């Protein structure tokens, strides 16, 4: 157990440094005058940028040689200080708290929703392969996967916000604003997870231990509950982990269409405005989330499948 955690920590460290460095280098070699862009980001296109840019340059010490700036960043990183946003001037940590927080809420809600939809459908289809439920599920999943997320988002917006008028088309704060974006994401996820679950269940249903459970005389419900779900959950969980990773970045589209203040939204702006600390911070956060998620998945799988606990 301790070795597991240690390994993860090391991995996290490596990811942090690699990702951060990579962003730094990329942002550095980007064309265009950073100070100008930051100024534009700050004061908007109506302002007289040129003058502002000079002030920005001095204020942020952008004229320092880049090794100095990089070492500074590293040093701060060790102190868990991600620096200040060049544009808003707020500490990156604070910005992340808001934006990453929002995205995580969104992601969590989406994941939960997709868990309510996907596996449920998957189990129903998997227990009767090629039954009508299965075919319906397949059709649905293929259709959903063929829809670009932004189109799905727009469709849902038209249906729920305009025609039915149930939910606000945009914004954030209460669950009502959360509903549309998370549903958009959830449907996309469920489209795949339902099939994964279906495969898993169908495979388990043909396993000798599933048959033996029946031959023991257990009632069907008990067979499915005690010997079906857990075994089927193993592949599903490891797959969900993968999804969760794509989720965190998949939110960007939904965010920009549905005016949701998430990490993707922030990332796009940060890159356009050359807000290096924000980009590094965001990437860092995402990288660490990746590590955390994989760790979580490993733990979950180990809990589900004792065979993985060997050694």
């Amino acid at each position: 157990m301790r070795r597991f955690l240690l390994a993860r920590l090391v991995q996290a460290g490596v990811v942090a440094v690699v990702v951060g460095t990579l962003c730094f280098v990329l942002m550095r070699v980007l064309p265009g005058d950073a100070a100008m862009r930051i100024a534009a980001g700050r004061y908007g296109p109506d302002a007289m940028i040129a003058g502002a840019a000079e002030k920005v340059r001095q204020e942020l010490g952008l004229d320092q040689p880049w090794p100095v700036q990089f070492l500074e960043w590293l040093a701060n990183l060790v102190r868990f200080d991600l620096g200040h946003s060049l544009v808003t001037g707020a500490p990156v940590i604070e910005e992340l708290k808001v934006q990453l927080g929002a995205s995580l809420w969104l992601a969590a809600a989406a994941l939960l929703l997709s868990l309510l939809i996907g596996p449920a459908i998957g189990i129903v289809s998997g227990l009767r392969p090629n039954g009508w439920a299965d075919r319906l599920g397949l059709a649905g999943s293929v259709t959903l996967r063929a829809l670009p997320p932004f189109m799905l988002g727009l469709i849902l917006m038209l249906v729920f916000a305009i025609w039915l008028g149930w939910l606000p088309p945009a914004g954030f704060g209460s669950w009502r604003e959360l509903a549309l974006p998370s549903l958009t994401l959830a449907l996309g996820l469920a489209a795949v997870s339902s099939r994964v679950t279906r495969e898993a269940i169908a495979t388990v249903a043909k396993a000798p231990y599933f048959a033996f459970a029946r031959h023991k005389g257990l009632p069907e419900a008990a067979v499915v509950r005690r010997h079906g779900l857990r075994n089927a959950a193993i592949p599903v969980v490891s797959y969900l982990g993968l999804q969760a990773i794509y989720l965190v970045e998949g939110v960007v589209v939904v965010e920009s269409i549905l005016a949701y203040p998430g990490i993707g939204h922030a990332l796009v702006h940060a890159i356009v405005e050359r807000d290096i600390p924000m980009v590094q911070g965001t990437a860092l956060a995402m990288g660490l989330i990746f590590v955390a998620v994989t760790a979580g998945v490993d733990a979950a799988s180990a809990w589900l499948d004792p065979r993985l606990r060997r050694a």
Partner: protein
Amino acid sequence: MRFARFLVVAAVAICLSTVTNSAEERLLKVVGPWEIGGIDPAQSGYIFSRLQVAETLVSADPTGKLIPALAEQWSASEDGLAWRFTIRADATFHDGTPVTAEAAAASLRRAQAGVGVLTQVPISEIAAEGRDVVVRLEKPFAALPAYLVNFGNIILAPASYDASGKVTKIIGSGPYKVKSLTPPLKLELENSGNWWGGAPEISEVSYLAVGQGETRALMAESGEADLVFSMLPVSVERLKRNPKLDVKIATIPRTRILKVNAASPFFDDVEERRAISYAIDRAGIAKAILRNPDLDATQLFPPALAGWHVSDLPPLERNLDAARRLLAEAGWEPGSDGILGQDGERFSVTLLTYSNWPELPPIATALQAQLREVGIDVEVSVGNSSEIPSRHRDGTLEMALISRLYSIVPDPTGTLLQDYGPEGSEWGAMGWSSDELLVLVDKLVATSDSQERAPLQRRAIELLQEELPSIPITWSELAIVANQRIAGVQVDPLEVNYGLASIRWAD
């Protein structure tokens, strides 16, 4: 199946809470495109000014006439080198402290040291004397009060700044005070309770920044927002048909112009610039893209801008033959591929623009297609707005489509001063300058007497029309959608202040 049960429960829960939630508490919901970056006045002061959280010394009414705000009156010394602004006695900041001349002077000094418009005023000193803020100048500058209207010069309480002089929170003096701020998208306001103008009609306001124009329209239609700012032209059509909504439109002193590099071989000759102007189908653009034929910019300023629109000026219009003729005279011959050329050089230019204003890229593509017809090959590059200033400075800019605001101070003089100075400016002329215009602008800056100004203004416009240092394309309008739940909404073309305080519930 357990999951099935979950599903049902969830569904029921959602429906129920939809019902319960549909009964809204009385909160004025405002939606606009502007995100709240930092809270420094120079950055997002306009939001706090428009939402009446913070105030400036001087304000302007929708016609552009200067009106008292925190300063109940002001006057200039004979030589025009010293201005006195008297702070009204009954003004208090949201933290309860009175608005003193010293506090106001501090805010202004800070603004002057920053990057805002005040940096362009020849100020030698800003001091507080009793209830007066005294601004001393190096040379007469009649437009000073107008400059103070700009959002960069809002007056904040001393407690708003930290030791280093950085703004940490917005403590203004307006009818609304900040309840909560979630950058970059959300701002919640409540009745400040101590505004000199009396209590606002509606005491709770929320502002949400929504970047996508289409989404803003949907929010208006779905009734999720009471007041929505700057609608896309296309949605306006649709919204007008909606019985539950009022659409209010005002032409604003913002013109979309084609900034050309008059130093480059392509545009060095005024005939060439005229040719370009002839090649452009403004009417088509206004009709098809802006959905309002009246926005066709026949000259730099729209009729609404009193004293700055010369009605009998020959309009800029499309005339392909004239365009071709002028280009031919300028020595451009069509090449084999239909693209013009002059001693081996193809008439092929890059048109920079940016998407901060969603209509710019479409207009750019329209221009691209139209210029192609007279044999000019244009490559559109949509980038960051900062590229235009930087390319202006290193002189590599060829053409840029920009949206220029002429009411940064209510009086366009300020902008003209910026844009058509001796060596041009990043949002104005490039490689072009006119001594006559410089003289005109200097005079305009020095006097505030409209009788004196009128001929000067007229001449300035004519000059710009003849010389076309930058080519007007279309004027702009501000479309506001108000739900009929609310009444008393009026549009401020200068976007100084949205008058939220006077909005009330219709019922």
